[in-house]
């Protein structure tokens, strides 16, 4: 598989942010409920003799009922350290898609980030690929609706720039890292016409680390709050 995928992810979040005394170990924290959508755009590679599964990456339709919901938590520690935890759920409550990062801000606006994530990717429709040279003597026995779910697992680091102007908070980040997907098997059954002969072709993918760059931008707005809590949206 080649890395030729663009993933556009937008989400809206309502958050509740606590404000604590600055001398405590946990300075303050934020809990947010997200709702958004994701669009994966994979550049199709020319069809060769071997299957390229990236040509069969499932594209999430941009519909509200297919959007995802997520929970995230952000904790600010006393000494310029922060931890962020995010999970995305599409249909069921689960923690399959998670992203955890730690940040260190030596200055007020500029910081560093490192972390890991695990996101589910879905391949579908790959049984349409001509896996074998069929001279018409075999039936292909496979469920063409089958979806193959794999997980992208990555470690990453980057720089973060954050600026607060009155009620607005802007945050931009440039992340880079290394990613690997979980290998998987595809089984294809061939049934010969006028015969009991049944063959099984098993494809085993090979996974390898690859590099990636992922820019992020986030804007927040504080709706209301008091000395202890703020409520807003991202």
């Amino acid at each position: 598989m080649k890395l030729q995928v663009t993933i556009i992810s937008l989400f809206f979040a309502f958050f509740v942010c606590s404000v604590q005394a600055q001398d405590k170990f946990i300075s303050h924290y934020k809990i947010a409920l997200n709702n958004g959508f994701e669009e994966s755009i994979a550049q199709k590679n020319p069809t060769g003799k071997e299957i390229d599964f990236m040509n069969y990456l499932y594209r999430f339709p941009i519909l509200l009922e297919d959007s995802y919901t997520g929970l995230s938590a952000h904790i600010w520690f006393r000494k310029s350290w922060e931890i962020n935890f995010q999970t995305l759920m599409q249909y069921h409550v689960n923690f399959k898609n998670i992203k955890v990062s730690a940040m260190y801000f030596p200055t007020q606006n500029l910081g560093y980030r490192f972390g890991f994530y695990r996101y589910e990717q879905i391949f579908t429709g790959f049984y349409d690929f001509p896996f074998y040279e069929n001279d018409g003597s075999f039936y292909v026995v496979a469920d063409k609706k089958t979806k193959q779910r794999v997980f992208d697992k990555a470690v990453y680091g980057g720089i973060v720039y954050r600026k607060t102007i009155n009620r607005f908070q802007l945050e931009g980040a440039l992340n880079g890292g290394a990613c690997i997907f979980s290998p998987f098997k595809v089984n294809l059954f061939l049934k010969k016409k006028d015969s009991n002969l049944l063959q099984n072709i098993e494809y085993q993918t090979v996974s390898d680390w690859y590099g990636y760059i992922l820019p992020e931008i986030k804007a927040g707005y504080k709706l209301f709050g008091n000395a202890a809590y703020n409520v807003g949206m991202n």
Partner: protein
Amino acid sequence: MKLFIRSVSIIFMFFIFRAISGCFNRDCPDDVYPFDFSKIKINNLDNSGMGPKVISNNTMNKAAVAFQVFISSDLSYLGQSRQKTQGIGFSEVNAWTNPPCPTYYASNQSVESISVVTLLEISSLIPANTEISDLFLGSDETSWYKTNLYLPLQKLSQKINHTYIDAQEVQFRLFLGREIENDSAQFIVNIEFSDSTSLSDTTHLIFIR
């Protein structure tokens, strides 16, 4: 008026609670009914297409000889009526979408082996009255294509020993893994059970095309 609204609200909440709890309370009996395998029946299969189909005629392709075998009990149990959800209150609530309770059956015997003998010559190397169990492969109801290849008969006999749901019978399929060089074929299928009993049946005379 306030007292009336509160009373109605409490009754309404009670009904809602009963309705919700009715969705989860399935009080099905989990009794397992014993039986003995006492009958055997063999159907012809047409396996020339994508999957095997039961046929009533006796013609098969020379490379697609296949059979469906039923072994079952003579006993007939009445279906177990589903117990209604019991509870306090003035109504009983059961989810409309709950399927009927399953009835579980377990055979007193387990299948020890499945063997096949050909009554007619298959080729010059395989004469009549030869045991050809190794030439047959099988599948149970759940393990045909899409998930698995055929099974050797020894593995098939292990796989069909389980608790059966809503039926005192088990079916499996037999596929001959060799072309027949004769213009007709006929087989005896023999099933040995753990209590030293056995069931045996002869297939129809099959015409090979």
